[in-house]
């Protein structure tokens, strides 16, 4: 089947792809480090879903660009100034509370986003989103259950979960910031996402943080220092052998 030329901008799809890719890269860290063996499997499943979304989106971004770049070219051969992901996903997450707070926000946002894209006019993007929307529904469910258990668990877990939430909250607003050529207007997702997240926090006996938003800029290629290290690790082997196949 020949799909008609799409007016969807390369940079928009790339941003969504990078969100998924960088998130999957952070999630992969947890495999062998989860609090319980069952959770190693659960987090690996989530990471694999995100990586799958990233691969589909990168491949499509490459097609839109029309310069012959593959998923691997885009993942491994761009520097951090060319990555378009939000700050939320790129910082280290080596605390389980942080991981679940972030997953709650990220999956609540992805759920709204993919649901809207699945109904959109770009058939390729709609197909990718239609598959992903089921995956992120499960991620959201997983994050929700953990945030509630940690928030309403022990005194220690409640305190740690609140701290984790405070740490992630400055990065929420960037998700709703304007993006050139956005297929789904980011700001239109804000109410639905915050309603979902805040209802979980209420059930978890946690307080919605009152913090100033971080500066952001990921969609324009301005990142935290953390992304450079993440990419250095992710890309070094691929880049050490130019042109090799793996």
């Amino acid at each position, binding site marked *: 089947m020949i799909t008609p030329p799409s007016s969807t901008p390369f940079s928009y799809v790339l941003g969504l792809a990078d969100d998924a*890719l960088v998130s999957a*890269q952070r999630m*992969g*860290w947890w*495999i*062998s*480090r*989860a*609090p*319980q*063996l*069952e*959770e*190693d*499997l659960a987090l*690996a*499943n989530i*990471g*694999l879903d995100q*990586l*799958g979304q*990233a*691969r589909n989106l*990168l491949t499509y971004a490459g097609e839109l660009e029309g310069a012959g770049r593959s*998923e*691997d070219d885009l*993942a*491994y051969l761009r520097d951090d100034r060319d990555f378009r992901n939000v700050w939320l996903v790129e910082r280290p997450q080596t605390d*389980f*509370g942080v991981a679940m707070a972030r997953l709650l926000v990220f999956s609540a946002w992805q759920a709204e986003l993919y649901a809207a894209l699945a109904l959109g006019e770009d058939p390729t993007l709609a197909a990718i989103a239609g598959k992903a929307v089921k995956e992120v529904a499960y991620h959201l469910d997983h994050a929700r259950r953990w945030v*509630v*258990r*940690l928030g*309403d*668990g*022990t005194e*220690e*877990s409640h305190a*740690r979960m609140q701290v984790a939430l405070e740490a992630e909250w400055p990065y929420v607003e960037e998700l709703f910031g304007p993006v050139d050529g956005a297929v789904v207007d980011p700001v239109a997702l804000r109410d639905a996402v915050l309603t979902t997240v805040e209802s979980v926090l209420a059930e978890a006996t946690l307080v919605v943080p009152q913090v100033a938003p971080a500066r952001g800029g990921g969609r324009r290629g301005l990142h935290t220092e953390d992304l450079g290290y993440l990419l250095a*690790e*992710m890309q*070094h*082997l*691929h880049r050490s*052998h130019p*042109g*090799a*196949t*793996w």
Partner: protein
Amino acid sequence: MSAEVSFDELLADDGRVEPRDPMPEDYRRSLVRQIAQHAHSEIIGMQPEGNWISRAPSLRRKAILMAKVQDEAGHGLYLYAAAETLGVDREDLLDQLHTGRQKYSSIFNYPTLTWADVGAIGWLVDGAAIVNQVPLCRCSYGPYARAMIRVCKEESFHQRQGFEILHTLAHGTPAQKAMAQDAVDRYWWPALMMFGPPDADSPHSAQSMAWGIKRFSNDELRQRFIDMTVPQAEALGLTLPDPELRWNAERGHYDSGPIDFTELFEVIQGNGPCNAQRMGHRVRAHEDGAWVREAASAYAAKQAARAAGEVA
């Protein structure tokens, strides 16, 4: 009828023992030891390969590797569950691992220095594990045998992906081929040691065979692995680091050089390259997760109390 007699009859009649059957304490203890050690090996085995998840050289390889290391968590989980049917708790078995009272396979105390090591582990280490594990699918203890059937089914993709990694490297650039050969050079002898000491020095073997826990001797399985692997190495275009390796038409097997078991015993004694690192990683993950496990238990207790309150 004594428990001992009915157990012997059971073994003779069915060859299968199930959790609630009478069984000699030695049989039970021996199974717990073996299954726990096997489970520990699976979860410690997540580390050497997990070491490359963040650096896998393509997104396809990254996905495969994540799924593979995830499978190892699953295998550990199935095996702990099998051990728990013998009246022990997973938490206690983990304690024994974390305090060094129970062992795991020494192979995982070797480092994964290059990407090719991920291939060598899949091909050689998982290959050796499969040779060891296939007979366990017919082991006399039902839950262990059933867990192994599941493990073996899932494991077959592991060996193939390892072979594919090495095949791609061996047919790639000169640097990639050298990387593949170096990995095989480092992993060949440790893989052979996975079958344990020679039969003459294997303290538990005879009893395990009589109980139907073990079906073939260490040396038989090692020979089977060598016979399988040599032609595969030829297909890869890689050399196995044993100058004495040659086909013996009379025996119908490959002859191989002597294995330096002093090396194996060194690693078992804790002097392998990564013993402390592997244990440190495992214990840290467990300790860092304690607050999470406690929170979930506390929440479950609260919910149960709330439900009881609503009913009352």
